[in-house]
């Protein structure tokens, strides 16, 4: 199909774009800013920079590698980059990643979310590409929508291309935060097939970390149903559940610390709804 070279001019232009703390490895300047990105308007991802990735010629290589940024002072993931080839692809089933709690993480369910859970531990570079399991530098708090609608299609496309051709794909994912937010607003995803110079794979998109029907406080990861106040009295309030004892607590209740992770969930909704589901209020915090 179309053959396009990544031009040095484009790369230099990219360097002129200011960003919010998402510099690529080896670069002083980040790639894009939230101000450059269109607001979410119903599509899980949107093409950026004419769908041309920002890789410079010097960055492009057919030697497989993978790099992950050190967590920043807030514990957030940064840029991840790889030259994905058959050498990096996993040969074993995916392992458990539940031990990682990315910044802004909450275990919270909504009926309007596919699979109920609002948040997934989203691999920045998908497991099917580099076989990374519980790598805290590669997992962010992402909505189900981001994971399945925004990121997975690109991971699938690249994984199948690599498996079919044996070629390499430059693959970079940059989480983009606003200020000190703990949850990313989305991810910049770039892909470029090396051996055929972008003939097979070429894209540059921003995938939105949103969930239709749910509002998110990106500073903390707190969430509530769209159309409800974040902390209205009994309506859309947040509780912590003990799924073993079937008690619900105020998030500030001291007993919350004693709940095992495996039994703890965050719930956004009404008190009445919880009681209807068989939960009873904690006698200590009396939520």
């Amino acid at each position, binding site marked *: 199909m*179309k053959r396009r070279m990544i031009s040095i001019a484009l790369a230099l232009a990219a360097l002129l774009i200011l960003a919010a703390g998402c510099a690529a490895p080896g670069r002083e300047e980040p790639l894009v800013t939230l101000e450059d990105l269109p607001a979410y308007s119903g599509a899980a991802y949107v093409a950026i920079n004419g769908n041309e990735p920002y890789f410079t010629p010097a960055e492009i290589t057919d030697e497989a590698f993978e790099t992950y940024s050190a967590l920043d002072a807030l514990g957030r993931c940064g840029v991840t980059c790889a030259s994905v080839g058959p050498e990096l692809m996993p040969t074993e089933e995916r392992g458990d990643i539940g031990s990682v709690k990315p910044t802004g993480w909450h275990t919270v369910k909504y009926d309007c979310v596919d699979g109920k859970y609002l948040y997934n531990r989203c691999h920045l570079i998908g497991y099917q590409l580099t076989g990374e399991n519980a790598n805290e530098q590669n997992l962010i708090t992402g909505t189900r929508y981001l994971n399945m609608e925004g990121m997975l299609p690109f991971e699938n496309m690249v994984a199948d291309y690599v498996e079919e051709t044996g070629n390499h794909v430059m693959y970079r994912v940059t989480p983009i935060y606003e200020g000190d937010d703990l949850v990313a607003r989305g991810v910049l995803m770039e892909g470029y097939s090396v051996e055929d110079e972008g003939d097979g794979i070429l894209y540059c998109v921003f995938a939105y970390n949103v969930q239709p029907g749910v509002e998110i406080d990106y500073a903390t990861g707190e969430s509530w149903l769209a159309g409800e106040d974040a902390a209205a009295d009994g309506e859309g309030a947040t509780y912590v559940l003990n799924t073993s004892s079937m008690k619900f607590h105020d998030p500030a209740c001291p007993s919350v610390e004693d709940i095992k992770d495996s039994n703890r969930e965050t719930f956004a909704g009404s008190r009445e709804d919880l009681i209807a589901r068989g939960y009873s209020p904690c006698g200590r915090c009396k939520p």
Partner: protein
Amino acid sequence: MERGSRMIAIVCLDDRDGMGFNGRRQSRDVRLREKVLEIAAGRRLWMAPCSADQFGPEGEGRICVSASFLEEAGSGDCVFVEDRALAPFAERLEQLVVFRWNRVYPGDRYLDLDLAKGPWRKTEEQDFPGKSHERITMEVYTR
């Protein structure tokens, strides 16, 4: 070209009826290409230059390549369509073969025929393993 003649179209779709993204096919599989050549055995097989590139030696001497292949294909010919609209040629199609990747890929080009309506009736369906795809489904729609 024989105007008014009927032809067989072959397309590849993801789970959302996507065909391509950013001017590129969504996916490829050597086992699927073998199926395409099987379907076209004894017929002329037309496609665009960008589609022919992926066939390599197995397609040599068997593929008619043209930028305007949909206009040039004649009666009984097969057309392998990855990069363009089919709706303008719908009246010339006697059969449509859909290969489903059973995966979700990025998409900005979609099949522009509604197979749930109109004259189309699914007459055959079979699964087969691909090289890089666990299961590819072939569906045949006939007028």
